């Protein structure tokens, strides 16, 4: 067990999240609300975040299908790299909670966290290999300046060895976290372990 990273307000510690709106009560939830929660994950029924989103079950259901397809579909970009794209987007948007969750998933999948320290410190230059640097640089650009992304950026990814399906997976992952970060940042706030206990 390595010590958690703590850099510039970002961390790989396990955080909790406190909603600013009332959550749906599982005991009185509609079948559509329960189906949307279960489509997300087995833990969603006990997550304040998903219980807030369950106020709009059809929207949550579609988002859950998209989320799982983007982050877990077989083939294409290795899952650790999808988590890296998600972590970079979360770092750029300042979403401490999402950055923590997806940095931990990267670490579990890749068995290392060197690039996470770099992303937390200075995302623009992060990456331990040319391939990783290309992935991070593209994630920063698509996250911060989507209107500026061009064929040149795609060529840089191909030169670093990414296949087209891997590039599509990266675009999906970064775009998905543009979505997720905005929900996490605007419907509640992260709670750090010391404050929670």
């Amino acid at each position: 067990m390595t010590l958690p990273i703590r850099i510039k307000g970002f961390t790989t510690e396990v955080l909790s999240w406190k909603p600013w709106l009332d959550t749906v009560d599982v005991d009185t939830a509609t079948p559509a609300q329960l189906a949307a929660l279960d489509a997300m994950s087995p833990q969603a029924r006990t997550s304040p975040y998903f219980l807030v989103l369950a106020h709009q079950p059809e929207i949550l259901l579609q988002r859950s299908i998209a989320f799982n397809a983007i982050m877990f579909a077989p083939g294409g970009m290795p899952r650790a790299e999808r988590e890296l794209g998600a972590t970079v987007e979360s770092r750029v948007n300042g979403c401490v909670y999402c950055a923590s969750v997806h940095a931990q998933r990267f670490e579990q999948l890749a068995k290392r966290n060197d690039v996470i320290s770099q992303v937390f410190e200075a995302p623009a230059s992060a990456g331990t290999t040319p391939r990783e640097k290309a992935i991070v640089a593209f994630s920063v650009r698509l996250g911060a300046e989507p209107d500026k992304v061009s064929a040149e950026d795609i060529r840089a990814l191909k030169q670093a060895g990414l296949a087209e399906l891997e590039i599509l997976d990266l675009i999906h992952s970064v775009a998905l976290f543009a979505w997720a970060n905005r929900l996490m940042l605007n419907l509640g706030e992260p709670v750090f372990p010391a404050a929670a206990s």
Partner: protein
Amino acid sequence: MTNISNVVDVIDAAVPLAPDQATWALRRQRDKVVSATQGSYDAMFSPAVEGLSVTERLLVALHACCVSKADSLAAHYRDRLAAEGADSGVIEAVDSGEPVADARLRTVLAFTGKLIERPIEGDRAAVQSLADSGLSAPAIVAMSQLIAFLSYQIRLAAGLKALAAAEAAA
């Protein structure tokens, strides 16, 4: 059953992508993402969602796309607003970034611009301002999901446009 082999959805139309392009076919390798993206779009603008009219939601979308310089998606929402019979003066005001007369719409658009451009500034007071303007918790969730989804849609379209441009140049 829809035949997925030749359908052009909202994302395809915005990029634009046609079924004879390699990038269109590449996108279909992740068919669950394609259908859930379109399914999300349909859910975001469903008349079944209460508390925010479809026109209000389309104005939010137009504002989000204008702020993000996503021209083709902005055109899509402008067309939908016209088809919905929305007030052309209001569409024009949102299009050009002018303030709108309606106080509730002004609050909603201000929240949209902030969440699109500076999501880190989201705070409890902003959510409270929506509640104070008469929005219920489900309506606030619908609106937050909509704005967050637009951030996704804008980046997905931008990424696919770059892929298609690289395909054309290859």
